[in-house]
């Protein structure tokens, strides 16, 4: 078959691109190919459904008529290879799709750490709707779960288990939790909260093997510690871009697909966006993979605009994270880690916002992280353009909120 | 399908009478919205206005009459209550004289027509003793403006070039004026705010001037001197339309910029800036005074001296200046009484101008008279929606006096602090439960409000007619119902009730006109309703009773004479809060949550001086009493140092325990509510 635009992937980046194109051009033939069944759903919502905050049906973020109403041609199937010379893609079903423009928005897959027994039935990830479908029957009181890994996804999975009354153990190889989302102090505070919530959280712990017993339960052997038992296991030790079907192309790949400010890959008429792509950041990085929902939305929009020929330049991605877990709002944005050469400003306790650190360099805010209260979130919202557009602001932490408002609203002294 | 309709009324959650559209579904009020076609508020209402629904159906409302017995209040039937009250009033009058009873109209239910009914009734039963809340708000300014202009003028804010707000904060007290001022600002008008507090109004001001409490008149005289010195007086206007200029000019000489600065804290530069604004505004200047000036020992003269400024500039009866408005020509409910009776009116001897202009007695002297029985016994009082326990000065004495009465009847929506002292408590109907004439002076409109719902409560009309019928003056209340009364009231206007009712958004009975004084002069008529027929710098009213006729600054605030060690701070009371109206609405849950506790508002330097922290409780002490209250430390720019402010109307921290009744304005008899010497102490547990 022939299409004007072929989008591989049916999630944030792919849909954002498709909708952007559709906004300006209703006739262009857009084909969306997804390897997953069913209408588009939101990966971000998996833990919320798992813990019962949202109904399962709310997972689906576009309704059944969406593809027809928007004149999207939807194919369920796996693309196994792409030929950028002939501008064709081949489906698992051997169908060949000829395109004018290609957008690769295939996302990422969970990494499987090299632990013996990790392939056993009953060892899950929490990354896709299929994973959720597998996990949900296990989320009953009295069950025991071991979560391997303590990143953003793992800890949300563990929190969901806590909410559902399970007995939860989290095993982390490193000496702290969530290195990419919060700083050391934040990790320390959150660790305390996680333990308060009844989670057996073990850092500096190496998982040696996963052993499945005949009764279906597991024994997890740990280095220098006694083994622990579990009814099921969730593994969340990071993700990697989904690029294997591109091996025979000339597309530059450095972990992720390298894209420029137009979301163009190294090959003409081939674009990439979302978790699969490494693109420019607000801090000058060339090819950074974020694997974050907001970044995917932005990249998709930029790709869509450029597929339309609108010469739309991406100002660079800004990493941002937020979630509610362990009765805390956990959020971060930009650069906030401990090893940076910058000034750190801590919000005083009297603000009631919790632990909020603002990092600044030469009167320019470069990042922030929070383990605290919702009331701090407005600061993050206002920070986004301030960081992105390199707006100057001398940080006086006690009046940061009002200074940010003044900057935002153009209130001159 | 629910039956839905919109009924038209005027809001009476405060005194501004904004036009409201009341949504009624199956006979129940569901929502109150602003009436977009109403000239005054143009569709906008404040939070009190929309909270009228909560008030209407408030479960705390009284539903049955209460009678005090040995075992506390018991519910009785209305007929029994009315019979017993009428009988008691009659027996008191028989035993102690007809003047031994009185009525007191409060702020909670209605002004105007409801006030007229109360006056008619008390005069009908041969007592001169009509009291109201107005003798602590409004009557002082009414007297002052009438002395100068012979009328209660209106500031033509919408058309002005320069609004000067003296001690008044319209956003909290006169909501739609804020819109008027902004409309004028849209056309380039400037705003000056003169206040001890950096109020909501001050936030818009082109020039904000902070004065020391009670010294506004010194500033006004300083400005008068500048107007004279800088040849800004409209000599033609002054010679044609005013009396007493020479005395004014001579007296003003004292008020040099240096003297003014010393007394008020206002710098010569600030004064020069005000004068510059006056110069640029031409004649479209509207000075307006609020209770900040009125609630002072020098209250009437504070307001008069500001009125002089408009007169000197000639900003009178011109667009954007002080407007003299015309009436509808409807009947008054008031009836005359015998001069021999009138002479017994409480306070008439001490404050003849108050009684002469307002026909009102003096509430502070009433308390003394109840307690002393001098010069004659006063035994019975019928109050409608007044809550003087919260709102009158010297609460301790108010409580003592009211308890000493043989008969206290309180008609109200709620069991107020005052009602708790009553012998009989009668449930009242609210503004949504009656039909009446409501006027708007600035727009010269009248509106016949619709009776929105009938919840079975007795109206003011039914109260006074019911008592009149029982007390042998039925002929004074011949109307079967409110509609008949309303028809009688407007009969002289040649407009039928039906026609008036057809103007559902109000009826402008006359277009606004200016330059009326010039036409009056041409016709050989007196342009102003003063003794001389002119604007009076030297008041004929005062000359007639041998008082100083010029509005000299002669009653300095008490705090200036007090040994600072004992009472180092001056307490100002009564700054209004948007969600409350005097003692009202702390029982509307949604509003109460916004400001649940009374606060003493103070300057950070004063907080430091007395070791107080924001949010903690402190004790404020005056010569009259003490209250414990939460501290609110304001920003340094928001309040004049050395002064604290406490809003009245909080029953758990009732500031009127601190306010004395000893110092009063010599003309109006107003207590100095905004200049009370106090000290403040940290409460150590």
């Amino acid at each position: 078959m022939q299409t004007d635009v072929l989008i591989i992937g049916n999630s944030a980046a792919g849909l954002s691109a498709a909708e952007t194109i559709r906004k300006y051009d209703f006739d262009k033939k857009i084909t969306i190919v997804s390897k997953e069944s069913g209408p588009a759903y939101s990966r971000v919502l998996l833990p919320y459904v798992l813990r019962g905050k949202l109904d399962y049906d709310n997972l689906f973020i576009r309704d059944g008529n969406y593809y027809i109403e928007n004149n999207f041609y939807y194919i369920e199937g796996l693309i196994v290879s792409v030929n950028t010379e002939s501008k064709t893609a081949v489906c698992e079903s051997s169908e060949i799709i000829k395109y004018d423009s290609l957008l690769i928005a295939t996302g990422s897959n969970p990494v499987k750490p090299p632990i013996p027994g990790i392939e056993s039935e009953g060892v899950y990830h929490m990354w896709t709707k299929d994973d959720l479908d597998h996990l949900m029957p296990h989320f009953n009181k009295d069950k025991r779960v071991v979560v391997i890994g303590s990143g953003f996804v793992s800890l949300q999975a563990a929190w969901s288990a806590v909410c559902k009354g399970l007995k939860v153990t989290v095993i982390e190889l490193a000496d702290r939790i969530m290195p990419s989302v919060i700083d050391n102090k934040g990790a320390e505070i959150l660790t305390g909260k996680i333990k308060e919530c009844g989670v057996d959280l073990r850092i500096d712990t190496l998982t040696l093997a996963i052993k499945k017993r005949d009764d279906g339960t597991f024994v997890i052997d740990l280095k220098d510690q006694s083994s622990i038992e579990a009814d099921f296991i969730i593994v969340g030790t990071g993700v990697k871009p989904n690029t294997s079907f591109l091996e025979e192309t000339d597309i530059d790949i450095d972990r992720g697909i390298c894209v420029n400010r137009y979301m163009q890959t190294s090959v003409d008429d081939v674009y990439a966006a979302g978790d699969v792509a490494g693109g420019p950041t607000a801090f000058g990085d060339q090819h950074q993979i974020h694997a974050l929902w907001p970044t995917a939305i932005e990249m998709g929009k930029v790709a869509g605009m450029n597929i339309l020929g609108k010469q739309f330049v991406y100002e660079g991605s800004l990493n941002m994270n937020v979630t509610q877990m362990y009765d805390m709002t956990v959020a971060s944005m930009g650069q906030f880690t401990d090893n940076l050469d910058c000034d750190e400003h801590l919000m005083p306790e009297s603000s009631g916002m919790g632990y909020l650190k603002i990092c600044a360099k030469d009167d320019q805010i470069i990042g922030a992280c929070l383990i605290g209260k919702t009331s701090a979130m407005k600061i993050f919202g206002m920070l986004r353009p301030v960081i992105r557009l390199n707006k100057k602001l001398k940080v006086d932490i006690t009046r940061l909120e009002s200074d940010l408002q003044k900057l935002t609203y153009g209130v001159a002294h | 399908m629910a039956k839905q309709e919109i009924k038209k009324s005027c809001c009476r959650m405060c005194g501004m009478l904004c036009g409201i559209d009341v949504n009624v579904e199956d006979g129940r009020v569901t929502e109150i919205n602003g009436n977009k076609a109403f000239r005054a508020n143009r569709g906008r209402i404040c939070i009190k206005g929309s909270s009228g629904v909560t008030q209407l159906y408030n479960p705390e409302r009284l539903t049955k009459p209460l009678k005090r017995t040995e075992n506390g209040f018991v519910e009785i039937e209305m007929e029994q209550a009315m019979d017993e009250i009428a009988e008691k009033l009659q027996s008191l009058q028989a035993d102690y004289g007809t003047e031994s009873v009185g009525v007191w109209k409060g702020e909670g239910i209605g002004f105007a027509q409801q006030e007229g009914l109360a006056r008619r009734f008390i005069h009908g039963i041969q007592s001169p003793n009509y009291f109201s809340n107005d003798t602590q708000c409004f009557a002082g300014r009414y007297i002052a403006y009438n002395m100068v202009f012979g009328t209660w003028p209106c500031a033509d804010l919408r058309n002005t070039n320069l609004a000067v707000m003296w001690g008044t904060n319209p956003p909290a007290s006169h909501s739609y004026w804020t819109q008027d001022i902004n409309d004028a600002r849209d056309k380039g008008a400037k705003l000056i705010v003169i206040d001890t507090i950096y109020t909501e109004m001050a936030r818009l001001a082109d020039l904000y001037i902070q004065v020391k409490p009670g010294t506004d008149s010194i500033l006004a005289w300083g400005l008068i001197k500048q107007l004279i010195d800088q040849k800004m007086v409209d000599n033609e206007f002054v010679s044609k339309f005013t009396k007493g200029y020479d005395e004014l000019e001579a007296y003003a000489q004292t008020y040099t910029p240096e003297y003014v600065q010393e007394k008020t804290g206002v710098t010569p530069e600030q004064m020069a800036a005000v004068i510059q604004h006056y110069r640029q505004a031409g004649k479209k200047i509207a000075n307006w005074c609020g209770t900040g000036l009125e609630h002072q020992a020098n209250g009437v003269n504070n307001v008069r001296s500001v009125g002089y400024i408009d007169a000197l500039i000639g900003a009178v009866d011109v667009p954007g200046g002080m407007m003299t408005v015309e009436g509808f020509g409807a009947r008054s409910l008031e009836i005359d009484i015998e001069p021999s009776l009138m002479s017994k009116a409480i306070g008439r001897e001490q404050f003849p101008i108050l009684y002469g202009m307002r026909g009102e007695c003096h509430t502070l002297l009433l308390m003394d008279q109840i307690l002393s029985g001098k010069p004659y016994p006063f035994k019975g009082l019928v109050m409608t929606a007044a809550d003087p326990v919260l709102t009158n000065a010297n609460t301790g004495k108010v409580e003592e006096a009211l308890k000493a009465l043989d008969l206290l009847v309180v008609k109200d929506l709620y069991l107020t602090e005052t009602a708790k002292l009553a012998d009989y408590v009668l449930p009242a109907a609210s503004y949504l439960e009656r039909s009446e004439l409501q006027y708007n002076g600035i727009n010269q409109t009248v509106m016949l409000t619709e009776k929105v719902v009938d919840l079975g409560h007795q109206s003011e009309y039914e109260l006074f007619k019911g008592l009149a019928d029982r007390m042998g003056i039925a002929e004074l209340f011949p109307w079967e119902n409110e509609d008949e009364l309303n028809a009688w009231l407007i009969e002289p206007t040649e407009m039928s009730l039906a026609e008036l009712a057809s103007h559902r958004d109000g009826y402008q009975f006359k277009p606004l006109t200016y330059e009326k004084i010039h036409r009056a002069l041409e016709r050989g008529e007196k342009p102003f309703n003063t003794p001389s027929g002119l604007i009076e710098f030297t008041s004929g009213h005062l000359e007639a009773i041998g008082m100083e006729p010029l509005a000299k600054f002669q009653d300095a605030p008490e705090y200036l004479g007090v040994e600072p060690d004992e009472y180092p701070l001056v307490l100002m009371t009564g700054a209004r809060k948007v969600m409350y109206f005097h003692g009202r609405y702390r029982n509307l849950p949604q509003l109460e949550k916004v400001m649940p506790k009374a606060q003493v508002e103070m300057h950070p330097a004063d907080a430091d001086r007395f070791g107080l922290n924001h949010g903690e409780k402190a004790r404020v002490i005056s010569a009259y009493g003490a209250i414990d209250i939460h501290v609110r430390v304001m920003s340094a720019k928001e309040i004049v140092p050395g002064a604290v402010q406490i809003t009245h109307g909080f029953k758990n921290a009732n500031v009127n325990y601190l306010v004395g009744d000893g110092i009063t304005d010599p003309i109006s008899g107003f207590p100095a509510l905004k200049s009370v010497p106090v000290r403040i102490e940290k409460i150590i547990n």
Partner: protein
Amino acid sequence: MKTVSIDRSKCVGCRNCEMACAFARTGTTCESQESNIKVNHYLDERVLMPMTCLHCSEAWCMSVCPAGAISRNADTNAVVIDEDRCAGCKMCMLACPFGNIHFDNEKLVSRKCDLCDGAPKCVEHCIAGALKYEDMNDNAAALRCKNDHKLIAQAL
């Protein structure tokens, strides 16, 4: 399409808008923390800034919501949150550069101005006339909102 325009030069900070919004939303309280409109007062600068959702034409909160809970009401053009779909993840708060999305700590969902289905209570209660509900295609209205548009352009 109509929206709430803000003329900050007229705001007195009386907070009737906040109280009306809070009550319209909750039916039980007028406390400002329950309001979707906020009046910010900068005393030193003598500026009052009522801020409520601008219903941006390119609403970033709507694009970024991972739950598809934010949409545009076809009748009023308001950007609205479906609280049944909202996960409470706060991504929209991260997205809004104006701080105009708030959080309902009882229901654990985001909340924001929905223009009261076309009869905004804040405007009705703006006794100063600083807020108006007017058609943004109208020139005068557009002028009033020029500052807002500039802000949006800057921030997005």
